[in-house]
């Protein structure tokens, strides 16, 4: 029980060191977190991927798919058909084809009640067909999905993918070994279609306030085990890019990714991950490290947004492992990938999935990939976040200790006296001086307002004073400005305690907890947030802060931060434009981003916006409150000068 009861633990040597050098220690911890992250790209810190799930038996059978004549023929028909439907999905043609190849074919109608503004309605139709398993009782299913893009769509076409899918349906239908139903799903309206279909399939709504009316579907297979999404842009492809990042940063099981990697390698297809292939440079350590770091950072940036980078991303939240194969049209390459090769890859993947005895559970769900054949496990990458969170805790612990030994230090007594301190704590930590009421009300108020902000946004846009985009910005900006000015007014008009140390401690703890929790869901978002917020949060002092610190913290306001990110991105993309144009574009892009993130919250149940308004913003305000009520360093210096002068006299 020594750990629990030794009264000197509070004043040990480590604690003394922490007290004297906490600034340096915290900054060191923060920097080491960055260094660790950068090191993760090196081969010493990541590991080669491997199969955990033996049941997959990847690539053990010889691929049989050879008849790509069907796909090619269908492709020609399809192009004619697509031209006839410039804005919509050629429903009857696809249904007819599905039926011709022997699928149970169904239509699924859905409606979107646009959650903002005047509540407009949009409708769409998905088409899906089920290939009933010859050797099973429809207890499990796998999905091959595809977003249908009409010619008017701004995104690159996916018609070749549909042709390939039809070719595969023709082939799959003739095979006898299927033990799981295979569902072929063609969706409309990109991610919305998939979301509505999944909600209808499972009979639950994920968004808020019934934004998606998912309708009803007639045909079902069993629980879906896995899904592959095809986005094939051309008949002759240069490479296949594998996309895994899902809604809210969720990832598919690593085994599925490995499976795709293995099948592509087997068929000799050039496949990439974030547009980088896994070619190694055995003699160029720096070059290899840099290319892996590049991939790692791309993955982190994509995952952090919490927006899926393909239709596969919406499957994850239903416990379905899914990823997207995106095929890029070949440029001038002599060697290209044919339907034949790609068909064999998909065949191999589905035959492996067909072997599954349990749902994916063996391999990692939490990982980062620096290349398509290397992975970093949660135990390794969490260290980098853990270290920077430790800096926050250290700072908060030191602040806590400082309350306890407040007043003792100034009298500069000899050190021997400090030992008595443990039994004779001074009365400086009297709750009255801790300003409990003030701290409590600030916490309660900021969080209450933050929790209602989303609701406020929705109400205000429906009033229709401005356009939806403008009104969102108006609500958020005015909320921000009022909440910024409020403490200033309070400080001017009322004489209230300027002791907000406890608020500082709680704010640090809240930020640390927030980062850790977000990291469990979406490491990338938490890591980026920690690189932005940890250092400034450590620098904030509960007693005195310079003007620069306040300005810095002001610039890190969540809303402004979004603007900086968008501005940076815009400036990077359109370097040749004038500053003013870039600024204008950035403002409008920020508005669009806000609308999109609010809509995503309502439609898909994505949480970054909710977390930002209900926790991050209140937390930011708590720090702001501390900053406002702490004295300026200049004033303190002057005051101490005056006292010194007086003592000289």
């Amino acid at each position, binding site marked *: 029980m020594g750990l629990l009861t*030794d009264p000197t*633990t509070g004043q040990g040597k480590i604690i003394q060191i922490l007290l004297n050098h906490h600034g340096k220690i915290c900054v060191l911890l923060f920097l080491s977190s960055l260094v660790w992250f950068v090191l993760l790209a090196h081969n010493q810190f990541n590991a080669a991927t491997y199969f955990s799930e033996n049941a997959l038996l990847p690539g053990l059978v010889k691929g049989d798919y050879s008849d790509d004549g069907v796909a090619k023929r269908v492709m020609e028909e399809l192009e004619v058909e697509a031209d006839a439907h410039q804005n919509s999905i050629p429903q009857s043609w696809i249904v007819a084809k599905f039926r011709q190849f022997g699928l149970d074919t169904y239509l699924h109608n859905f409606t979107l009640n646009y959650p903002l503004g005047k509540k407009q309605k949009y409708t769409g139709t998905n088409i899906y067909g089920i290939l009933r398993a010859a050797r099973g009782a429809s207890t499990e299913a796998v999905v091959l999905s595809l977003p249908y893009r009409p010619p008017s769509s701004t995104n690159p076409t996916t018609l070749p993918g549909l042709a390939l899918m039809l070719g595969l349906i023709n082939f799959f239908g003739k095979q006898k070994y299927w033990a799981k139903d295979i569902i072929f799903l063609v969706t409309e309206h990109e991610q919305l279609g998939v979301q509505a279909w999944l909600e209808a399939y499972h009979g639950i709504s994920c968004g808020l306030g019934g934004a998606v009316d998912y309708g009803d579907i007639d045909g079902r297979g069993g629980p879906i085990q896995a899904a592959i999404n095809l986005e094939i842009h051309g008949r002759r492809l240069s490479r296949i890019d594998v996309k895994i990042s899902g809604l809210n940063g969720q990832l598919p099981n690593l085994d599925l990714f490995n499976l795709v990697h293995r099948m592509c390698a087997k068929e000799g297809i050039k496949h990439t991950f974030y547009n980088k292939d896994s070619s190694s440079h055995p003699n160029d350590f720096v070059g290899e490290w840099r290319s892996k770091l590049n991939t790692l950072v791309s993955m982190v940036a994509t995952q952090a947004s919490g927006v899926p980078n393909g239709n596969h991303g919406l499957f994850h939240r239903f416990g379905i492992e899914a990823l997207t194969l995106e095929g890029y049209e070949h440029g001038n390459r002599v060697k290209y990938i044919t339907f034949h090769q790609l068909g064999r890859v998909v065949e191999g993947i589905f035959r492996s999935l067909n072997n599954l005895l349990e749902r994916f559970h063996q391999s990692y769900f939490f990982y980062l990939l620096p290349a398509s054949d290397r992975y970093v496990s949660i135990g390794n990458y969490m260290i980098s976040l853990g270290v920077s969170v430790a800096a926050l805790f250290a700072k908060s612990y030191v602040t806590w200790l400082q309350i306890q030994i407040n007043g003792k230090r100034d009298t500069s007594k000899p050190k021997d006296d400090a030992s008595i301190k443990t039994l*004779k*704590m001074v009365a400086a930590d009297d709750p009255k001086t801790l300003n409990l009421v003030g701290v409590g009300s600030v916490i309660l108020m900021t969080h209450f307002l933050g929790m209602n902000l989303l609701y406020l946004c929705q109400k205000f846009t429906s009033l229709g004073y401005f356009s939806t985009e403008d009104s969102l910005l108006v609500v958020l900006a005015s909320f921000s400005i009022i909440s910024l000015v409020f403490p200033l007014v309070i400080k001017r008009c009322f004489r209230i305690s300027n002791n907000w140390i406890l608020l500082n401690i709680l704010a640090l703890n809240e930020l640390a*907890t927030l980062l850790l929790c977000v990291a*469990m869901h979406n490491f990338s978002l938490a890591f980026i947030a920690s690189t932005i917020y940890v250092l400034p949060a450590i620098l904030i002092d509960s007693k005195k802060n310079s003007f620069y610190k306040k300005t810095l913290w002001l610039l890190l306001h969540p809303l402004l931060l979004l603007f900086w990110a968008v501005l940076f991105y815009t400036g990077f993309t359109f370097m040749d434009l004038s500053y003013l144009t870039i600024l204008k574009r950035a403002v409008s892009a920020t508005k669009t981003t806000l609308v999109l993130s609010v809509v995503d919250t309502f439609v898909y149940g994505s949480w970054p916006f909710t977390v930002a308004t209900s926790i991050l913003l209140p937390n930011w305000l708590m720090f702001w409150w501390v900053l406002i009520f702490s004295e300026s360093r200049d004033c303190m210096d002057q005051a101490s000068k005056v006292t010194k002068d007086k003592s000289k006299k």
Partner: protein
Amino acid sequence: MDRVIILECVLASLLRFWLSHSEYKQIIADRVEVSTPVNSWKRVLEGSVLYDEGIDPYKGDIFHETPFILVVSNWLMHNFSPTLICLIFIACDILTAVLLYKTAALFMNELFLKQEKEKGGYAPGTEDLHVTKDDIKTPPIYVLSAFLFNPYIICPCVAQSTTVFANFLLAATLYFMAARQRILCCLCLSAATVQSIYPISLIAPIYLYFYKPGQAIKTFLILVSYVLLFIAIFLFAFAQLDGGSWNYLNSVYGFVLTVPDLRPNVGLFWYFFTEMFEHFRPLFVCAFQINALFLYVVPLSFRLHEEPMLLATSLTALSAIFKSYPSVGDVGFYLSLLPMWKHLFHYMQQGFFVLCFLIGTSVFGPTVWHLWIYARSANANFYFGVTLAFATSQIFLITDILFAYIKRQFALAHGLERILDGKEAKLILD
């Protein structure tokens, strides 16, 4: 002071009322940390519907509350609107808070008087440690605020879990104990016991409160016979309410004691018993229940016989940690009692860690739960790890406060300087 109390009560009621009518209510009510199979309001409603249909709710595995709750909830369901029912829960919570406030006020007064009486025996130079007249005014307010604005208390109230009533009965027991009302105290203790079994251990501090020198055995016999009598009356009345059937005994108390439902909660039972071989079950059920019910009663009573209120608090806390179906409502209850020992806080050393862990695990629990149940990317071990950390931090807290008490007593008796044979000494609890 009175104005502060009213203001706090109004504010707390508004907060609860707003939460009860927001979209968060359902989320909170569905949390396993808040609603257990025993106290969940959903199950109570289910039971009272079965009762309406003429089906004995105790025959199934849904309803595990007492017949009293069954009849009352049935009556409420028929006569009151949901808003009114929610108001009843809020009122009950506020009443509990006021009772705790009064308990704390009585206790602080007593503490001060006791100190004045014993002042002569204290070592010189310990004046800093003494409780002053000002010191005894604030803790009751802190107790009140700690109860009213405690998320662990607000959530069960919003979720309308029956822990609200259990807490009310516990608070009444403590109040009558501090007010030295013997019969009422025994009545409330019996009511709390038939509601949730575990408060029975509070008989030890109650005995210490009413004990008079020279009448040790007599007081004990009187107390025990009162409590047993009341419990018997309650149980008999329950059987009458349930139509003369004793089925409820097994479904209410048997359920709590033998732990057949292993749905995860903040406690330590579920994981352990899912992992265990079936034939060891009776042994470990006994071991776990003894740990929650009796194990600490005798040793703590010997050590804390001068401070029965601290004994009562620590026993409540220990049963909140170790009971079979704990919820955060139980945790919040004893946490809000702690400000009564504000004068011990100087000696507490784990305060910061406990605070961090309590905040951290409270947020981490639902997070990991989501990953396990919905995203399917985590597993039961993650969630158990969090509940284990939650329990550990609470144990740290209790040990810390008990040791702080001992350190303060030591300092009062021996002075502030800790010099042994000319060297600095360490205090270690063996």
